[in-house]
């Protein structure tokens, strides 16, 4: 054993010291992570709320005002509380305050992680008039075409929901309820379709008959948002 090795062994610290140094590093790291989380949370929440508001106006054409609608106790009412949960949808209203359509959020597994989708739905015509991906971690360059490929997004601008939406091979769309899928990203495209179908079925019986939608109460217009 060389002198160097001996001196190294003499310096061997106790397990307590090792555990303590790890615990200390963990503590400091934890404090830093909590601070950065707390510091950025308001901005991140505001960003998300703004994105959602913008998305509502994007998926529902000719809408100037929106309000949150809440489904509880078997009935759709105007939501006055802050925030949103899985029973919240968004009602879009025209310039005269007349009801135009709903913006419904749906989520489900994509190729990599949960995809959150918002779609605009006209209950009277029973069709979808717009789709926006709120959140996704699909493969860059492939799966992310679900929001980057404008031809794919345009599929949802005038889409019948009956009997149910179907993704077909690109270029073979023949009925109003079919969409052209994306070459190389079939799983992501099908995931979007599945999420929308699921959300639509879930909301089918919850929405009031056309004409009985909740009246406009809040005054949150496009410009304010």
């Amino acid at each position, binding site marked *: 054993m060389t002198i160097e090795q001996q001196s190294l062994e003499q310096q061997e*610290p106790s397990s307590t010291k090792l555990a303590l*140094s790890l615990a200390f590093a963990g503590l400091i790291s934890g404090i830093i992570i909590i601070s*950065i989380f707390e510091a950025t949370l308001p901005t991140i929440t505001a960003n998300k709320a703004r994105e959602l508001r913008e998305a509502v106006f994007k998926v529902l054409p000719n809408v100037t005002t929106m309000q949150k609608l809440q489904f509880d106790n078997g009935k759709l009412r105007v939501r006055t509380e802050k925030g949103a949960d899985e029973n919240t949808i968004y009602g879009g209203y025209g310039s005269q305050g007349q009801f135009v359509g709903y913006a419904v959020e749906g989520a489900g597994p994509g190729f990599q992680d949960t995809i959150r989708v918002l779609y605009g739905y006209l209950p009277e015509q029973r069709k979808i008039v717009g789709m926006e991906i709120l959140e996704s971690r699909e493969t860059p360059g492939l799966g992310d075409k679900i929001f980057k490929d404008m031809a794919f997004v345009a599929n949802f601008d005038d889409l019948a929901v009956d009997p149910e939406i179907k993704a077909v091979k690109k270029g073979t769309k023949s009925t109003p309820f079919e969409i052209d899928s994306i070459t190389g990203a079939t799983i992501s495209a099908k995931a979007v379709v599945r999420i929308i179908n699921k959300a639509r079925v879930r909301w089918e019986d919850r929405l009031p008959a056309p004409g009985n939608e909740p009246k406009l109460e809040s005054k949150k217009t496009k410009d304010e948002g």
Partner: protein
Amino acid sequence: MAINIKDPSAVQEMMKGLWRDNPVFVQVLGMCPMLAVTNSAINALAMGLATLFVLVGSSALVSAFKNLIPKQVRISLYIVIIATFVTVIDYTLLALFPAIHKELGAFIPLIVANCMILGRQEAFAAKHTVGFAVMDAIGMSAGFLIALFALGSVREILGNGSLFGIDLFGAGFEPWVIMILPPGGFITLGLILLFFNWVTERKTRFLEQVVAAEQAKG
């Protein structure tokens, strides 16, 4: 952190990362982000800058505390430090540049697993002063950034006909879709490595000839 920037060895520590010891082209490290996020120039740039932040930050910390870090648990401590910086940059990007964060997605948290970063802590920061460690970190991450950017722009130009999202060739250009897909990453990286090795080999041969000529003269 008393270091003279004009000190030739400090500059050397920085420059070596750019070419001689380039983390991607010479050490072939950090291949996961290299291949995954280089399908467009802007993604490559954002990834390079995020890595720069993490590497410089953790190198400085590791070097500053190198005498306090017990040898037996050093790797775990390095990972804790690196992961903290990664979380900071993850939330900062999410708050300030949500669009870029959306693009890079899962690959930001994966910076923790970039072996180039851990490698620099073990091989350099833990043995040198803070000033040198920071210079080395800047050089290495600049080299990484250059490599990412080279790959990203080649792949975006050929695979999408654009650079930074600006269309270059007009409607007549048929994009080489394969360049955007994973194989395109491997092909481009392979060609760049080939070029790098060719240059190095030529340089070595040239130096050998010079030496031979000198000897012949002497």
